[in-house]
């Protein structure tokens, strides 16, 4: 993938269906997350958000349909961390491994220079505790480390599953600013969250999923239509 393409890769999910033990977890999910925009991926617990994100990243198989990044399945990219950075869990680092050690492993896996480790540590604001084992960090600090893992390759696409968990008010604002900046720089940002106020604050598009089906996908302005995000969302998924 050329540098220009790398910074403008879209996420496309087409008719994604996943059946586990006879239960349809995803039922024909289709949407796109575009470069230069922050797309909020929302839905009740168990709606299929994490399964969709894992399918996009090739961690879970789809029963049918496809999920691609930059025109091809994620695992077909040669330098994956420069294509997509993912935050799926704050506990992604071994509890006995330091933040620096964790990022060093990630950098080595994709032939990134050592300077990328320091840059990521500074970017997510944990440089001063870089030599602390992840298990001794607070949830918020581990979340920052997980975000550093996602950002270390300066990827074209960011896929974040509930990145606000454990963050304090200042960190939430910091995350809002950084994600907005990344999108404004041409990146594709897909973020799953339950914080409706955050979606209103910095997202461009919304995809609502419920019981494995996309019930709405489009620009945030069309979705809220003058109401609060929270009210529109609850109307949609709870009918009330």
């Amino acid at each position, binding site marked *: 993938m050329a540098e220009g393409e790398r910074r403008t890769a879209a996420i496309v999910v087409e008719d994604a269906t996943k059946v586990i033990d006879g239960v349809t977890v995803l039922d024909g999910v289709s949407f796109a997350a575009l470069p230069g925009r922050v797309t909020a991926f929302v839905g009740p617990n168990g709606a299929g958000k994490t399964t969709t994100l894992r399918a996009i990243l090739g961690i879970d198989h789809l029963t049918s349909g496809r999920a691609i990044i930059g025109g091809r399945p994620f695992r077909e990219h040669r330098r994956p961390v420069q294509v*997509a950075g993912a935050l799926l869990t704050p506990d992604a*680092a071994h509890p006995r491994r330091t933040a620096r050690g964790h990022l060093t492993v990630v950098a*080595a*896996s994709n032939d990134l220079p050592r300077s990328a480790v320091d840059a990521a540590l500074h970017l997510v604001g944990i440089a001063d505790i870089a030599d602390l084992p992840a298990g001794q960090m607070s949830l918020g600090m581990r979340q920052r480390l997980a975000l550093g893992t996602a950002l270390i390759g300066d990827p074209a696409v960011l896929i974040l599953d509930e990145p606000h968990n454990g963050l304090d008010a200042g960190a939430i604002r910091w995350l809002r600013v950084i994600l907005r900046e990344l999108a404004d720089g041409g990146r594709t940002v897909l973020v799953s969250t339950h914080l409706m106020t955050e979606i209103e604050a910095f997202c461009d598009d919304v995809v609502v999923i419920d019981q494995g089906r996309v019930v709405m996908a489009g620009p945030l302005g069309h979705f809220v239509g003058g109401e609060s995000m929270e009210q529109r969302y609850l109307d949609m998924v709870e009918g009330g």
Partner: protein
Amino acid sequence: MRAAWRAELLKVATVRGQWLGAVIAMLALPAVSLLVAATGGLGTGDTVTSGAATGSVAGLLAFGIWAATVAAGEYAQQTMVVSLTTVPRRSVLFSAKLAAMGCIAAVGGLVSVVTAWLVVWAVLPTGVHHSGDPLALVSVVLAIVAVSVLGLAVGLMSKSPAASASIVVVAVLLPKAAGGLLGGLQRWVVGASPGTVITQAVGGAQLPHNQMFPGGAAAATVTMLLVATVVAVGGALTLLRRDG
């Protein structure tokens, strides 16, 4: 592949418990051999080489359990998600894990047997025991690599450190313990088990005839490595099919 392999080695190097585990595994064999030699446990027919190999089962168990717990630990600690997203090609990820584990086991095994030979040679009375053929200890290194690969594969398949460690213990100890129940298969199963492969290579005279692998020590070694390869393929297929 080279980058992923380096990352796998770094994973071990950056967690104290993991590199310490490898060091302890490396010391297990010479420690037991030293104990046997120093307490007069060797017979007059034993050589320095067969004496050095007396701690082999301890070494096999230590390396196998270490490999299994390291591999399964990635699932238990949930860190596998990062491995799958940073090295999403499963074939590359598995090959990197296999190569890293194989390297650590080979180097660790080599250091183990050289140390064991030297300490046994140093503690045995001069002129009583022949040195034997130190090159026969290569079979110990190969057995350690085979058991480590087995540990890696079962760790990936079971995702459970406890279960995979138990499987390694059973795989190393059960063939010989249950050999009598196998009838005509005993020579094939027990003969190709890691501990017996080593005994055949360094001192076949100590084995009963019905536990000697048909074709001798070399054929037994090749069979053991083939079995480890088959289990490794099982681990690779599991990673491909189950984990996306």
